[in-house]
């Protein structure tokens, strides 16, 4: 057993990281440790297991037995309680400069257990340029024992100054068969369902698991993929667009509804709200309102991000649907992503030319870019729906 067992279909990466862990162990023992370095950049498409790989690497670095997976150090590192492993997960739209400064301060400390001071930043692509520049100092002149692990979809998501100082760990989309095998082995999913979910999720392991185990997720996917059929006239296209945006919003609200309220209550309790007894006036203490407002701002940013993420997932499913259509039109014989919708894909493939399918794929991808560029989501999706209608 090893901490790297959780990585699906990433043999080359496991080999690279295992070698580095060996070198790191040498360095800890006082050797030269050639092959270990202070900054690592994990790249790969969403769901390929960037953060899983980074966490496993962090655990292996801390483990006296090079990542055995069962010692207390490994358990702590993987569950996020190891004192020398800090995980930064930007929940909002951006990673702030304040967060980056905290990372720098932390990485300068000596490791409490004498091995490495590891800082893992998930979604490092959410750093704005000025945040990256703040972090640059720590990457450029690292304190000894400090290891920085960055995760991003691709190398282009980071400033050249940052990425040129990192060693690259490129993960690839795991093959559908590998994902299906994981679903069968670890989650006891029925083989037919596993193979459907693995293909529909396009290599995104987390999404495949949700599709295989959650009826709600399957229903949402079906609703999204009904869009190409509901583009009869301009009005219908606009309504379909609105439905898509509303579904994303609803999902974000549902998530926010439970989490935001709990957080707000926890904070106001911490500030002494609702307390009884001697000395309490019953009103919130001074300065408490500011802290609450700050929390609300963070929650709003997180809500926007959840909504965008949900919308983005829907758009990826749509793009894949038109990819299936194109594959049919050109007769490539490629395995369809959405095998359950091949009837629809065939109908659309017969009724249009490959050129217009390409235009449609472009429209979907343009919509993703537009939403990322802050265009009002409803407007962006409407423009896409109208472009899909005309082809």
């Amino acid at each position, binding site marked *: 057993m090893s901490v790297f067992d959780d990585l699906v279909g990433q043999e080359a990466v496991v080999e690279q990281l295992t070698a580095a862990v060996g070198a790191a162990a040498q360095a800890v023992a006082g050797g030269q440790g050639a092959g270990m370095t202070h900054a690592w950049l994990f790249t790969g498409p969403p769901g390929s297991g960037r953060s899983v790989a980074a966490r496993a690497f962090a655990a292996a670095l801390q483990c006296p037995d090079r990542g055995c997976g069962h010692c207390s150090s490994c358990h702590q590192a993987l569950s996020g309680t190891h004192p020398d492993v800090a995980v930064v997960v930007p929940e909002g739209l951006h990673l702030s400069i304040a967060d980056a400064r905290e990372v720098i301060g932390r990485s300068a400390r000596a490791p409490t257990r004498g091995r490495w001071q590891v800082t893992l930043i998930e979604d490092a692509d959410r750093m704005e340029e000025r945040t990256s520049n703040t972090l640059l100092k720590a990457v450029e002149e690292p304190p000894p024992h400090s290891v920085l692990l960055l995760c991003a979809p691709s190398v282009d998501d980071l400033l050249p100054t940052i990425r040129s100082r990192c060693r690259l760990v490129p993960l690839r989309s795991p093959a559908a068969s590998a994902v299906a095998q994981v679903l069968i082995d670890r989650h006891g999913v029925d083989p037919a369902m596993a193979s459907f979910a693995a293909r529909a999720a396009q290599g995104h392991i987390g999404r495949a698991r949700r599709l295989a185990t959650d009826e709600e997720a399957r229903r949402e996917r079906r609703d999204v993929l009904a869009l190409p059929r509901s583009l009869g006239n*301009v*009005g219908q296209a*606009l309504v379909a667009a609105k439905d898509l945006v509303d579904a994303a919003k609803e999902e974000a609200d549902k998530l926010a509804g439970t989490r935001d309220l709990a957080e707000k209550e926890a904070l106001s309790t911490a500030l002494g709200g609702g307390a009884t007894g001697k000395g309490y006036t019953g009103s919130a203490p001074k300065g408490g309102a500011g802290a609450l407002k700050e929390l609300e701002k963070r929650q709003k940013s997180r809500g926007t991000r959840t909504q965008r993420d949900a919308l983005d997932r829907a758009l990826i499913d749509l793009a894949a649907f038109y990819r299936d259509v194109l594959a049919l039109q050109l007769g490539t014989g490629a395995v369809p992503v959405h095998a359950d919708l091949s009837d629809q894909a065939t109908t659309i493939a017969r009724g249009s030319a490959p050129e217009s399918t390409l235009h449609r794929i472009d429209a979907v991808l343009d919509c993703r870019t537009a939403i990322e560029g*802050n265009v009002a989501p409803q*407007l962006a999706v*409407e423009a896409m729906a109208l472009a899909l209608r005309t082809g």
Partner: protein
Amino acid sequence: MPPPDVLTPLTVVVGEEELLVARAVSAVVRAARARNPDTEVSELDGGALQAGDLVEVFSPSLFGDERVVVLRAAQDLSKETAAEVLAYAADPVPEICLVALHAGGAKSKALLTALVGAGARRVEAAKVTKASERRDLLRMELRGDGRQVSEDAVTALLDAIGNDLRELCSAAGQLLSDTEGPITPEVVGRYHRGRAESSGFAIADKAVDGDLAGALELVRWGQSTGLAPVLVTSALANTLRSVALVASAGRQPVNALAGQLGMPPWKVEKTQRQARGWRPEGLSVALQAVAAADGDVKGGATDAAYAVERALLAVVQARGAAR
């Protein structure tokens, strides 16, 4: 002009519209000075008053001097000082005119009711927010001298000056003193020209109606007065979306459509009129152009103003091309 009963011992001015508040205060001060030019005016800040400060202010003067006391931000008075004010209000000194300024709203509402209960004269100075209220105020202002004012003249002045009440009233005063006879759009035009403000929706309406020149003119006016380009693209998107929904809903009674689309009936009627000039393909092209422009004004293009103008051009062309 001030009526003689301005000089009541107690006055409360309720509201936050600065101009109206200032007018109410100066009306009292003017009337008091007209009666006795030596009247002393003192101002107090409700938030800064300590208990006991008021005793000194409200004690009758040895020589019977007349005084006007302006109590600003009466809603910020502490519990103790508010009680002192009320105690005084129950038995006011005849030489003192107390003018309490209250922001309105829920804060210290009890003080306000108690003062009015004690016989204070209440002057309304609520914030003027609606266009129609602004219009009424301006009309009153112009008619104050018994002059004739045409409705078009009021519109012309509103267009030229914008929404700032102070500026509107001073322009009205200027017009009244500089001209004679009825006030017509021509009279206004002699002194004021152009347009101070233009809204995104006004621009969108022009563009959707196919009036490119009108839309561009409004956009330029808007740019010179700081109208954010984002407001123009979002208004365009909104208007085009309504047109598309109404157009594709087909022929239905207005009220049924209003319920179905979630729009007020007047908007359905207006949109139906606008929809007559459009074909579905044109709408499709226009909305896509607006979506592209929305990305442009949010940092996608170097010149947001140009992006907006190009979107307007695209919308008007899309309307024409598909006819």
